[in-house]
């Protein structure tokens, strides 16, 4: 478990460092999902970095594609490509596109970026596994803001109808989006209107588990259990997270959805992350 905490910390460092140096990209979302991505890539997923197109591999679709930098850092740490390549992020001709591109980068199972779409593709992958009687599992992550897209609920219906218990979805419920709604009486504070994700997914017939998305043992146990669970229902993990997690001045602020740290902010952020001052 110490190892996974360290991986998550390295992912956060990679995210902040890359965005700072490349002067591009999203920060808040990648930081809120870092713990879950660490567990997925270093514990849950049955994958082979030396054979990224292995047909039997578990699939992972990052439907909230704008947070791709967190996935790229995890892939680099896992050995899919040289870590130094992170410094090409968002550059022209880079394999590390602003939003994941399956035609360019091995290890990306689906091109995403337009919200709601990766989730449907993940449903298609899980359905493909069922139809072909293949054992791989499909994992996907959406944002809480992303669930405002109607396509998410179109897909939710179909996944339930086809009993896709080989599909594990995670909602990175950091409760902030790019701009959102003004908090009552204070337009400088922004909020997401959705307070109860779990009951909606339950109403759609999904097996819903709510967890603390920064509690690594809980994330690990939940993913591990649901990976094996075949109760005829697709699985939704509502992971309660904090946008910007790990960098105190970024936490809980919508302004860090996509923003480039100044030199001083970068130093502060790296100091915080180097201390490893996370939850434990």
């Amino acid at each position, binding site marked *: 478990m110490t190892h996974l905490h360290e991986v998550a910390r390295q992912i956060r460092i990679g995210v902040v460092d890359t965005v700072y140096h490349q002067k591009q990209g999203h920060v808040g979302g990648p930081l809120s999902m870092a713990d879950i991505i660490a567990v997925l890539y270093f514990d849950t997923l049955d994958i082979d970095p030396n054979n990224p197109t292995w047909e039997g591999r578990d699939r992972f679709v990052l439907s909230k594609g704008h947070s791709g930098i967190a996935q790229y850092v995890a892939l680099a740490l896992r050995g899919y490509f040289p870590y130094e390549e992170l410094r090409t992020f968002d550059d022209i001709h880079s394999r590390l596109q602003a939003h994941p591109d399956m*035609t360019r980068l091995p290890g990306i199972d689906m091109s995403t970026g337009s919200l709601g779409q990766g989730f*449907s*593709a993940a449903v*298609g992958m899980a359905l*493909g596994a069922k139809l072909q009687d293949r054992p791989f599992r499909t994992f996907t992550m959406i944002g809480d803001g992303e669930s405002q897209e109607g*396509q998410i609920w179109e897909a939710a*219906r179909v996944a339930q109808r*086809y009993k896709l218990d080989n599909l594990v979805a995670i909602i990175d419920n950091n409760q902030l989006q790019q701009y959102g709604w003004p908090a009552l009486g204070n337009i400088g504070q922004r909020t997401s209107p959705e307070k109860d994700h779990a009951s909606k997914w339950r109403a759609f017939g999904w097996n819903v588990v709510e967890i603390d998305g920064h509690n690594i043992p809980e994330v690990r146990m939940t993913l591990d259990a649901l990976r094996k669970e075949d109760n005829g229902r697709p699985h939704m993990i509502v992971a309660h997270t904090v946008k910007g997690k790990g960098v105190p001045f970024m936490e809980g602020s919508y302004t860090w959805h996509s923003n480039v740290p100044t030199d001083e902010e970068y130093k502060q952020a790296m100091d915080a992350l180097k201390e490893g001052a996370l939850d434990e």
Partner: protein
Amino acid sequence: MSKDETKSMRDAFGHKLAALAQANKQIVALDGDLGNSTRLSFVEDAVPESFLQMGIAEQNMVGVAAGLATTGMMPWTCSFAAFMTRRAYDQIVVSVDQPRLNVKLVGSYSGLLTSNTGKSHHSFEDLALLSTLPNMVVLSPGDARETVHMMDAMAAYDGPVYLRLSRDETLEYLPGTDEAFAIGKSRTLHEGKRVACLSTGAMSPRLFAAVQALSAEGIDVTFVHFPTVKPLDEERIVELANTHDHLITMEEHFVSSGFGSAVSEITSRTAPVFMTRIGIENEYSQCGKDAQLLESHGLTTEQLKERIETIYHEVEYGV
């Protein structure tokens, strides 16, 4: 009438997809809850396990198809053309065309003849939308027989394809459409001079009848059918432009950004020639019987014949 002789494009489509699915377990049919209209129901009848009901949700249908394709399956999605293309366009772009996934998109009830359903169900822009995508192949068969052979070519092709079908059940067979289909090749159905008519989809049988009627009156214009809208048979278009004084394009689609526009993009670059583009002008349509709708947009065989004749006389005699 046996299923091999039907003139109904949708019937031919349904029977053929059922046969393809029977022969290849990787092929699945995804329905947007219109299976009994589009004849995707024939797949369910013949191979129930290959039929997947996606409900009234075209955006997700396309996304699921993309996901299925990544696992090695060959999904065919089908709805009315208006919903298949307009409703799910972003999904087609981001989830299918950019990653160049092996998804077959079928737009039934295309164009103007949508069984008297009117403006919301017409698709006058689907060729424009789909043809502009870098990886998409766009097919627009002229009759039921051609549809069947085209589907063999689609199944053999590894990549995204849009198939545009007509609900017009009266389309006569075009000559030569009983042969194997090659993506990107046009079919020359009548040789003439001065004026060449180029058409696609359901307009081709209507136009062919007009060209034959003109021939009986001693006016022979060239007529070429283009069942592939993308990639267009550029070589043949340049040849036609170089050997004729005037090209007339016809389509059951907006004249703006459609088949005729694609033809003129080629001629304007390589072989400038006078052109007349016939199709739906800059307006929405309405409900009505097939013949009434075609007539209100100047697309009946008789109206096409008159327009060709007028252009031919202008070119031949300068009047």
